[in-house]
């Protein structure tokens, strides 16, 4: 993290979007994550996407669970209401919020521990219900705040910082979301803004449950030989909690590649993540084919990113419930309370 406060003064010539907001109106507090953390790149992408999308910042509600990723809503959209809830329970809190006011935009931010382990049940059901939201998982395959335990998205055979080999199958949240009824599913990489920002923008525009799995390397705990989800890690790192702030700054990995091209991101330990862009023949509208394709590439050791699945003509939870157009939280006594005549009828029917 940095202790340098952002200047309060704004240059009058700062570019404004269609609503008259500057980029700064979409920023939040200064990040307290480790310098070089992939999550900060995702926050930057969110800021950029919402700025470019001309969204009123205060009409967004940002919700998260617990973990490094769940801290990030403090670092963007400072004029939005935020809710840092309970570990693994963001999906239900977001669902309830969405029930109360269908007019706001809901942004759920979570991590691989929060969504794939403790919160897997709620992750599944929020997709099934088609809650109108953008759900982002900042996926680094590791528990950061508790210092380096495997998460449920860590690949089988990958090695932890302490040398343990993960013997469990990984959970692919994007694949899961596709099978559970999410109508917009994408995978991005925090180091590839050119890909990620358009994905976020498309997801924001989507009506229904939109999910983006963003691979987001952990500079502190997943950067050693044998890891499949990190870049370099300070080999001499001290494990004391108080030394977190002393991790040296590292440049974020950035990649740029063309459709159809396979690109390896070489990690410090010599291992690699191979990223494949969705090729020209890939049809994101064909869910069954998409699932087969992603699975085949996974077996070949590659991770498919991009827009994986889109059901453009989708409906959401409110459509299914057939709720009124007005937000439920705006209804008043006259809309809600049946009054004495109705109560007299009820009483009469019970005699």
């Amino acid at each position, binding site marked *: 993290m940095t202790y340098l406060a952002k200047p309060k003064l704004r240059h009058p010539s700062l570019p404004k979007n269609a609503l008259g907001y500057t980029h700064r109106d979409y920023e939040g507090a200064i990040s307290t994550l480790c310098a070089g953390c992939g999550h900060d790149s995702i926050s930057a992408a969110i800021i950029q996407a919402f700025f470019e999308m001309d969204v009123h910042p205060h009409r967004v509600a940002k919700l998260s669970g617990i973990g490094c990723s769940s801290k990030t809503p403090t670092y963007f959209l400072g004029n939005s209401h935020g809710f840092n809830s309970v570990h693994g329970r963001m999906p239900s809190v977001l669902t309830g919020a969405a029930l109360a006011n269908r007019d706001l935009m809901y942004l759920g931010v979570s991590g691989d521990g929060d969504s794939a382990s403790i919160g897997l049940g709620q992750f599944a059901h929020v997709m099934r219900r088609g809650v109108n939201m953008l759900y982002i998982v900042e996926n680094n395959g590791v528990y950061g705040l508790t210092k380096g335990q495997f998460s449920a998205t860590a690949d089988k055979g990958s090695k932890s910082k302490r040398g343990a080999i993960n013997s469990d199958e990984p959970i692919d949240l994007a694949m899961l979301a596709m099978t559970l009824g999410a109508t917009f599913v994408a995978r991005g990489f925090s180091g590839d803004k050119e890909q990620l920002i358009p994905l976020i923008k498309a997801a924001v525009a989507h009506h229904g449950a939109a999910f983006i799995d963003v691979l987001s390397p952990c500079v502190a705990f997943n950067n050693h030989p044998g890891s499949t989800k990190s870049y370099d890690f300070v080999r001499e790192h001290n494990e004391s909690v108080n030394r977190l702030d002393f991790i040296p700054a590292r440049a974020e990995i950035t990649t740029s590649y063309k459709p159809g091209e396979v690109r390896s991101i070489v990690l410090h330990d010599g291992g690699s993540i191979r990223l494949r862009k969705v090729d020209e023949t890939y049809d994101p509208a064909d869910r069954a084919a998409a699932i087969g394709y992603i699975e085949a590439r996974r077996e070949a050791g590659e991770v498919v990113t991009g827009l994986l699945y889109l059901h453009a003509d989708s409906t959401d939870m409110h459509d299914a419930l057939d709720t009124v157009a007005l937000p439920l*939280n705006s209804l008043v006594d006259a809309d*809600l309370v049946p009054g004495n005549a109705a109560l007299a009828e009820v009483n009469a029917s019970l005699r």
Partner: protein
Amino acid sequence: MDNATHINDFVVKFANVNGSGSASANGLFARAILRMGVPVAARNIFPSNIQGLPTWYEVRVVEDGWRGRRGGVDLMVAMNPQTWEKDVAEVDPGGYLFHDSTKALPPSRFREDITTFGMPLTAICNAEYSDARQRQLFKNIVYLGALSALLNIDPTEVDRLFGEQYKGKETLLASNRRAFGLGRDYALEHFPCPLPIRVQRCDRVGDRIFIDGNSAAALGCVYGGATVAAWYPITPSSSLAETFAKYCRSYRTDPATKQKRYAILQAEDELASIGMVIGAAWNGARAFTATSGPGVSLMQESLGLAYFAEIPVVLFDVQRGSPSTGMPTRTQQADLLSCAYASHGDTKHVLLLPEDPTESFAMAAQSFDLADRLQTPIFVMLDLDIGMQDWLTAPFRWDEMHRMDRGKVMTAADLDAGRDFGRYLDVDGDGIPYRTYPGTHPTKGSYFTRGSTKDRYARYTEEGVAYVDNMQRLLRKFETAKSLVPQPVITKAAKRTKSGVIWFGSTGAAMAESLALLEQDGIHLDRMRLRAFPFADAVGAFIAAHDRVFVVEQNRDAQMKALLVNECGIDPSRLISVLHYDGTPITARFLVREIAEKAHLFNVTPLRKVAP
């Protein structure tokens, strides 16, 4: 029982097989008696089962209007071979046994000190109906017909009830009438009708209604302005959410668009249902969940969040036999501590303690005002006895002038007017801060809600001073709650006494009767019925004004006593527990025996020996 005539004062118990369609016939039995102006206290005693296991329905016909179980049985309608021995044994000496005599039983299976009426119900139904299910279902209506003759129940009242139930379903109406007539005619011909135990028309029901507490609470939620309900099925609370859906369809459908002014989600578990309620309430909708003890256990972590983040959620806990799965279809008041101090860390919650369906309705509606006003979870503590049994109870009343109290909410206009917004700032000195709904203002009033420590302006901090400041304010808020929650009902005994008794919830049904009986026996007790936690100042004062106070509750560990001792600083030796926790509703007989015995220990001598 003696052989004297017992008009409007006897107990009929139906022993049935679960899933045999008896519930509908038994309900008609109770309602027909009510229609004759005679009060009843009815209770289902049912298993955790859909089909096959034994189930009982007990109707106490009681002109005096007592609402508790009396204990004992005067007429057993023994329709379940599985439980025959036990059912026959339960009849009071001098009582009556009604049974299906199609298959003859040896005399050894009967008792000589009771009168037996055998009726070939199966044979009659087999001769009358060809369909197997009809044979089964109409057997219940046939015995209803027979009972109407035996107990002098007016057949025109039953006929009217048929007419209301099967309005527009003429075939069903006709076949029910026919089955009823078959039974009635048989009984009139073969039995000495009516029996000395009998119903006689009177005018003791008044304008009271017959309904269960879960339905009443559900209706209260409609009147309380709840728009979001999230729940997970669990006995004995499921019918609360389901009845809320039913009432919403009637009263919350937009007349023009036919769309819903409510949203009900059946969640994947209780973790999710409380999460949804928290999210909805945070976002300005009135929201509730309904659950039972195991669900409350699952919700603990989120309840701590709701307390600390000050979210106005409403939770109905329809208590059942615990711990663990316990006795899911039996009643208890054993979740008091797990709700009052729900979650880890220092937490205290507001509990409302309705005594019957009438109060369940009123307190359900009020709970949403309290939640919004206090910005904290409100627990409405029902139990299975209130929630799932039909009670004869005062009609629901509503103040037409009442408007929802949404509590301290700052609007965009407030913010533009320059009002200082600090989410956890105690502006008014009552411990209750102001909140804003998400999306209120482009640049003012947004804040970040979190379960971790924050300062008065909702900024994250781990400073001990800020933490203590916040926790002390939450205590002030709890103090404020004392005067806002329903106050205890205190009644003086007929004679001056230094002894008192405290009770709450469904215990009230048996309490009134037992106090009357104790009074006849010379035991006078001042009374206090608790209606909420935290306790009003009057609670501590009542205890202080008496040498000893009985505390009646339906759990093993005297949880309410623990709350009283803990919160009011009471010397525990002054509180004498009367505990009933076998899962059946507490009875007046039990209360009289326990209190008389314990009163004796304290030299409060009864005038005469109290009946066991």
